[in-house]
């Protein structure tokens, strides 16, 4: 393998990527010192671009790296990602057009603006904003792991020594460049580069799914070579049914609670385009399903296995590509996976910055002018990227997917305040606040219990697996949400008995 050629193609395409990112600031020119222009690309995206943008939230390192890794190591339970993407857009079809309409009617830039209005509570709004910001951090960290996995293979194959430190320096450089163009172009940069990223990824997924099975003798051979994995190989081990169902349903409910997904929704130009692009998003999931299957394909791929053993299961997909394709294509595909982490990281940091400025800082600052607001958000987007980068140098989870699932537990507890509040203004803010607290604490308790008592801190796990209890093998996020909803329901009944009139600003 000519590793210099791999690197040359990778670097050339990266330069093109950066150029596009900066050029985007001039695309459909708007006043980028306005927060709506910077963070929502002027709210003018049509069906195609909205499809790419929200698709970019889905086709991330979660898809290229974390799911194939988990399937390769643990087996069938991690195919839950397929029902998840099938269901999540159904959830979005129901909830998002309504949220979009409310956002235009009352001039909301974030979902938290709606929370503040619905409950007439700045404190609750602030709690929900901070929850969104916190939940994005492990998700961004996952993106960085994905990028690192690609660099590990590429640089590890290129140089004999110091591969680890070269990888770290490369990551930091990539992040500085990303921060610069996010700062300059905002969501426009992410949209334009998302199109480039997705074209590369589509080509890569199709090439791998055609070439590798032919080279190794089909999926039949891969499944035959697969060892008996803990959660099932050719189908799901019955013990993991609870886990599979709760992980898929909870992930489906969680995606559109994440600020970055809602950001994508708000940037579309009207509800009709929003509906069409959302309806077609499960097609994106077909790519995710194929990528998940690469975790199985690896077992039949004799040339890729030594690489996976050398660089770790995190590199399942990069190793497969490296082992079966010519150098130029490896460079092309690696760049796709690399920016497949960068672009979502950019979108996520923009949405965090948006929330922090608008819903946490603005309420405290009198007469914050729009220019200062936008400038603040730009600096915060830089800050959040580097917090996430620090995060990964500090924490090394055994399985990268668990990072996203921790984010899921946190964000799920905002479901009553966002999704339920879309349809009713009768909920008590005290009940919703208390439900949030009970949800977070019960999930946290189970998380600590599962990690420090059951696995003794050897890995992060988000599935609660104590035997002989009815809650066994459920995703802890599901348990947290259950207690959360219970408190919201009971609390609202009590609160309404005491104060029959709901004190809310909007009455739809």
């Amino acid at each position: 393998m000519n590793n210099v050629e791999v690197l040359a193609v990778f670097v050339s395409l990266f330069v093109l990527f950066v150029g596009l990112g900066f050029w985007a600031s001039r695309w459909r020119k708007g006043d980028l010192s306005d927060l709506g222009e910077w963070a929502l690309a002027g709210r003018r995206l049509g069906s195609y671009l909205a499809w790419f943008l929200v698709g970019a939230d889905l086709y991330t390192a979660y898809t290229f790296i974390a799911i194939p890794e988990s399937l390769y190591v643990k087996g069938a339970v991690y195919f839950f990602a397929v029902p998840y993407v099938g269901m999540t857009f159904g959830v979005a079809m129901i909830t998002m057009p309504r949220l979009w309409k409310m956002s235009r009617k009352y001039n909301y830039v974030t979902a938290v603006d709606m929370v503040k209005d619905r409950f007439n509570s700045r404190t609750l709004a602030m709690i929900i904003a901070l929850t969104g910001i916190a939940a994005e951090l492990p998700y961004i960290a996952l993106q960085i792991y994905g990028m690192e996995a690609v660099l590990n293979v590429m640089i590890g194959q290129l140089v004999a020594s110091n591969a680890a430190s070269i990888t770290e320096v490369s990551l930091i450089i990539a992040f500085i460049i990303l921060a610069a163009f996010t700062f300059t172009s905002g969501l426009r940069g992410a949209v334009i580069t998302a199109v480039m990223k997705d074209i590369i990824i589509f080509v890569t997924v199709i090439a791998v799914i055609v070439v590798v099975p032919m080279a190794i003798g089909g999926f039949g051979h891969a499944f035959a070579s697969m060892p008996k994995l803990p959660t099932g190989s050719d189908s799901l081990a019955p013990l993991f049914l609870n886990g599979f169902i709760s992980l898929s349903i909870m992930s489906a409910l969680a995606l559109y609670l994440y600020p970055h997904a809602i950001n994508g929704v708000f940037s579309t130009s009207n509800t009709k385009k929003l509906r069409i692009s959302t309806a077609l998003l499960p097609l994106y999931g077909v790519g995710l399903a194929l990528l998940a299957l690469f975790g199985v394909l690896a077992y039949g791929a004799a040339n890729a296995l030594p690489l996976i053993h050398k660089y770790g299961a995190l590199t399942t997909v990069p190793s497969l590509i490296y082992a079966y394709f010519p150098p130029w294509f490896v460079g092309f595909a690696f760049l796709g996976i690399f920016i497949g982490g960068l672009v979502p990281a950019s979108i996520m940091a923009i949405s965090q910055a948006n929330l922090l400025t608008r819903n946490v800082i603005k309420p405290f600052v009198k007469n914050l002018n729009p220019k200062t607001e936008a400038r603040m958000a730009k600096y915060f987007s830089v800050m959040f990227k580097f917090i996430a980068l620090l995060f990964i140098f500090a924490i090394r989870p055994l399985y990268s997917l668990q990072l996203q699932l921790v984010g899921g537990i946190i964000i799920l507890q905002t479901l009553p305040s966002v999704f339920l509040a879309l349809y009713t203004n009768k909920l008590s803010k005290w009940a919703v606040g208390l439900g949030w607290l009970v949800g977070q604490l019960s999930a946290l308790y189970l998380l600590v219990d599962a990690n420090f008592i059951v696995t003794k801190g050897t890995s992060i796990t988000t599935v609660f697996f104590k035997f002989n209890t009815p809650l066994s093998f459920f995703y802890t996020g599901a348990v947290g949400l259950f207690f959360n909803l219970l408190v919201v329901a009971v609390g609202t009944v009590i609160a309404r008995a005491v104060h029959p009139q709901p004190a809310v600003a909007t009455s739809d």
Partner: protein
Amino acid sequence: MTEGDSAGISLETKGTAGQKIIVAILLLIPLIVFSITPLYNHVKPELMGLPFFYWFETVWLVVSAIMFLGAALLLNKMEGSK
């Protein structure tokens, strides 16, 4: 975007009861099918070497997209020309 636009946005879903039922069915079927995992947790029949568990879910992504698209088109029609 002007003030006039924002004031004119209605949050109510228009359309007949029949249309609403069709939309509900199109949106709910994929959610229900995916939720009932025992329905597709089998090895046979295989398709191109893939166990049923894997290919059934993948095919249902396409079926879901078609159903969601049907619901989206109907909802857009119900919403009218605005």
